[in-house]
């Protein structure tokens, strides 16, 4: 494009999270990520099963379905399950205090599984095809259960600072002096002629 001058290239945010395993363990990263103490046995399980073990209030089976549901509602293929778990944790904590919410979630999951078995003869999480799972979600999308989970995820997922960088968003800036010297006007692909 018309960028023939010697101005520096645009400051681009890498849309991925990099952290070393050592720093992760040392810094109490597991707790920060909402992952409780894991037994060796749990570590041997597939990732989603291990994460589902964190649902102490709702139980691992309901938790596993909620994790899949959360990903089907806001699917980001580059974002790992642990961020969906983090998004759901406050909801599960709330369910621990609120019997009605707990019922809504456990019965919602049970109903989704009944629908899945009726239609596909398998539980929701055992349906490998996204399109099959979506067929079921279109049936329940206006119901209280789906609405509750989705409404919660809008903030639970996207207001989680840990995922912001995956979207190229940098968050709070005042403590870094704003962007006046950090690329507020550095766009380099625009043909301004």
């Amino acid at each position, binding site marked *: 494009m018309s960028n023939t001058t010697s101005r520096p290239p*645009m400051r*681009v*945010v890498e*849309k991925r999270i990099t952290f070393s395993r050592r720093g992760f363990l040392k810094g109490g990263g597991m707790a920060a990520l909402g992952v409780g103490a894991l037994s060796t046995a749990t570590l041997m399980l597939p990732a989603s099963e291990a994460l589902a073990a964190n649902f102490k209030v709702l139980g691992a089976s309901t938790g596993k379905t909620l994790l899949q549901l959360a990903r*089907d*509602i*806001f*699917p*980001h293929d*580059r974002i790992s399950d642990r961020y969906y778990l983090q998004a759901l944790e406050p909801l599960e904590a709330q369910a621990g205090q609120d019997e009605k919410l707990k019922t809504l979630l456990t019965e919602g999951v049970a109903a989704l599984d009944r629908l899945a078995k009726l239609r596909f003869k398998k539980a929701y999480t055992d349906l490998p095809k996204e399109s099959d799972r*979506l067929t079921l979600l279109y049936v329940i*999308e206006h119901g209280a259960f789906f609405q509750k989970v*989705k409404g919660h995820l*809008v*903030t639970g*997922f*996207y*207001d989680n600072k840990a995922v*912001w960088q995956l*979207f*190229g*968003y*940098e*968050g*709070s*800036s*005042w403590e870094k*002096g*704003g*962007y*006046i010297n*950090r*690329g*507020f*006007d*550095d*766009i*380099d*692909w*625009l*043909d*301004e002629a």
Partner: protein
Amino acid sequence: MSAKFSLDDDSVVVIVGSGAGGGTLADELTKRGVNVVILEAGKHYTQNDFENDEWAMFHKISWLDKRISAGGWHHTDTYPNLPAWIVKGVGGSTMHFSGLALRFLPHDFRIKSTYGTVDGANVLDWPISYEELAPYYDIAERKMGVAGTKASGLPEMPPNNHYKVIAAGAKKVGYKDISRPVASNTRANDGRPACQQIGFCMQGCKIGAKWSTLYSEIPRAIETGHAELRPQSMVLRIEHDKSGKASGVLYADKDGRQHLQKARVVCVAGNSIESPRLLLNSASSLFPNGLANSSGQVGKNYMNHTTAAAIAIHKGPVYMYRGFDIAAVISDEAQLNPDRGFLGGYHLEGLALHLPFTAAFMKPGGWGREVTSALEQYDHMSCVWVCGEDMPQEENSITLHPTEKDQYGLPIPIVTKTDHTNDAAMRRHGLAAWRKVSEAVGATRVIDMPPYPASHNMGTNRMSANASDGVVNKWGQTHDIKNLFISDGSQFTSSSAANPTLTIVALAVRQAEHIANAMQRREL
């Protein structure tokens, strides 16, 4: 230096609200030696309380007392209890104010003369003209430090990436009137620093570069020794004497204790929902339909601009959140042009959303890959807010709920709004124009968004030459009660396509001058 006035002091001017209208009025009155008591419903936040965090600030400063959205507008679905997005706190909505300070156009003050009778609308000329207000616009631009205006002398806000993308597209499709008059310091000014391109302008400017009465007018008024600010003081009703003159206001403090502050003059600046609500809640045997409501127009003609929003996804990164939240503003479509199939006009205002709000407002209720594939391009987005003239319609209104009460024991307000047919045509035109502007610089996907909760609330105590057509005269003085004034955007007779804050400030400066002079002449 704060003054302290007794509740029995009936020589003071009581100002209800401390935002653009009330804060400005306090500054301008105290400058002239008038004693004022400012009653603010919300808390007194400071810049230490401000965070660069959309949801944290939303929960901290928004007016979240229950309201009900009614009528035919989108908000009954999307935001049933949040019709309006305004602030409860010292400084009012100037904390959330984007900073965009556009003037009304001359014809905006003469919509009846310009448009004639409009089916389904309650159009009326203002009792003042653009020419009468022009000198006060100069003062307002100076007070607020509007960048790039002659009056302020401040340089223009330097273009950020978001500005450049929008301006380039606008030029390619032939738009010429592209500007960015924002009330934020482009160099140190008025004791406040220069803008550091932080973003989060609508979450309360962390460094105070963007103007807000919170740290401009209010402290200045207090410094004179003529003002007392009482935060967390919710006014419940305006009292009057036997002759029908306002005599004071009853308010509840933070502990719910009620106090009656006597007053020589009462000025109401609680925004276009709370101001008419207060007049209606002040009904008495002498004024059974509410104060200053002989016309029946209190709470009517609610306007909040014809708005829409849209996102464009570009071929390269934009990082719209870097820098001042208002980007390029295209004003070509604000001019009158009946060939477009609608009356009035609109501005296309570049307005950055940060990621959390983009996720919440892009497709409220939406889910699935349609939503997530767009959000994954957040760094490539530009975002516009269409701000257009909204026709006054009598049935668009603020009314009181017959049974449901808020924490102060006051009936909760119902905000009823239905689009005029003009609005739908304008919204369509605005969204199509944005698409063209975006595609001109190669945008690959444009997503139309429903309107946000309304931050521009206007018209519910409108100005009129005749007492039978409106609530206040050309000074904002109620037709019915001579020592009762309206000092906020509820005075507006028409909405124009311009963001209301600059006009609210200009009117408040003019009103303060009038009140101070009238007090000196013992007319008040």
